[in-house]
């Protein structure tokens, strides 16, 4: 373990090998490399930072333990995403199964996910709409449309057929477009927040309700 842990010549796979060989810094370095994108995926799939942190912790501890059995037939990042998304879906299911637990439903609204004035409303609305999707659909659309991974890779991450990824994405986009109709040009005032046409909910006043129920499309056939 005398070689440096960082640098272009040490790839993710090598870090996994070092971790498996007992190098205690290797896994931390692997996490450091990828934590921001894993965080984005968890945060946007689950919709609030507390759940995202819980899921990431579960996921990384699982990955830490499982890394010794890592199979080289997937990229390390694909494998990490898969573990993180699984943990997110577990957290979402746990929450759905325990609706009475007063977890923090409040915080998601004032997250610092905002940049310029011009984008602020839009991205706030997009994030609020995202939180209303069933978790499986949210995960698909987060990975494909937000993170930009190829559908085939997302199919590996989600462990579903490519057609299922596509149909989850399509459903998610359809729902998102519907909840964001007030932003559409031609509906109310073009491009400027459009208060007129019954905007579907100000995220600050209407806490989003995560749809965890019936239209969970697990096991659906690709069409």
């Amino acid at each position: 373990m005398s070689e440096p842990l960082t640098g272009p010549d040490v790839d993710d796979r090598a870090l996994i090998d070092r971790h498996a060989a007992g190098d205690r810094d290797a896994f931390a370095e692997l996490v450091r490399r990828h934590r921001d994108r894993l965080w984005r995926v968890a945060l946007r799939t689950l919709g609030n930072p507390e759940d995202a942190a819980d899921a990431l912790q579960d996921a990384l501890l699982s990955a830490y333990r499982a890394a010794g059995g890592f199979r080289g037939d997937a990229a390390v990042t694909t494998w990490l995403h898969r573990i993180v998304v699984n943990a997110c879906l577990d957290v979402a299911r746990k929450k759905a199964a325990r609706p009475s637990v007063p977890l923090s439903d409040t915080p998601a609204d004032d997250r610092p996910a905002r940049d310029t004035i011009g984008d602020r409303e839009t991205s706030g609305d997009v994030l609020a709409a995202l939180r209303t999707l069933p978790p499986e659909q949210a995960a698909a659309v987060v990975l494909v449309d937000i993170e930009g991974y190829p559908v085939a890779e997302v199919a590996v991450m989600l462990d579903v057929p490519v057609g299922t990824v596509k149909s989850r994405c399509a459903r998610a986009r359809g729902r998102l477009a519907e909840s964001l109709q007030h932003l559409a040009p031609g509906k109310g005032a073009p491009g400027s927040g459009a208060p007129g046409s019954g905007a579907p909910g100000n995220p600050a006043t209407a806490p989003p309700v995560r749809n965890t129920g019936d239209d969970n499309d697990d096991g659906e056939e690709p069409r």
Partner: protein
Amino acid sequence: MSEPAAGHLDFAALAELDEGLLGGAAADAARAHLAECPSCRSMQEHLAATRSALAALPDEPMPTAVSARLDAALRGAAGTATVVPAQAAAVPFWRRPTAAGLAAAAAVAALVAGVVVGTTRHHDKARPLNEAAAGAGAVQRAAAAANFPVTSSGQQYTPVNAPTLVAGLLKAKAAPLASGAGGTAASPNPSPLTLTNTQVPDALAPLESSRAAILRCVAALRAGEPFAAPIHVDFGVFTNRPIHVINQPAMILLLPADKPTFDEAWIVGPNCATAPDNNLYLYQQVPAQP
């Protein structure tokens, strides 16, 4: 799949069309309709704009508090070799682990255990709060200041309810009921909290009855680093169904962190996250108490 009356398309159908999911005839009909329906075309444009808005969401780096928490959790994993029972660890995220893969994982776990357990780890964060307790006498010195409250609530802790329950412990602590605090040993089942809903498993008795044993556990969790006495210790059970951990005996440690803004909740099994079980069930940061 669904085209509403008059041939108009809804967002679901438009999204399926865009993704190539509509069958040949339906797709042809949809395209023909789009060619002559400005309202459906504008919906299609809105759908595309929605995708662009998704792609344009601002970047969001991991907050420092979260990365600190994950670092600490991974340090805990390194210090205790494995984090949940091996049978649970083997299952969750590999679809079908091969025998060779399992053997390799076991070999790695054994190797990591051999290499890591009991060694002193260094990390880059100073621990100013705890410096006074450094060194070999840490256990004794912490013990000298050890009036920390110990309760046996018997509560079922889960990853979901842990923050709430820990906060509840602290609230209860603020009330004048610290029957066990200050004594040299907590009685086996004092239940000073009234929220008891299960019996505290017998396996926890050695820890329940000895603050010194609890402090040895904290010392092991801190893996040689300086540490301070717990803020609160509770005994109960831990359940995490997705990884098949059900009502396992659990000691809940609320420990001061090296940052003023949060404390740390650790949930461990009777042998305190050491071999043979290595049960560190949970590590979470909780907001610091005023």
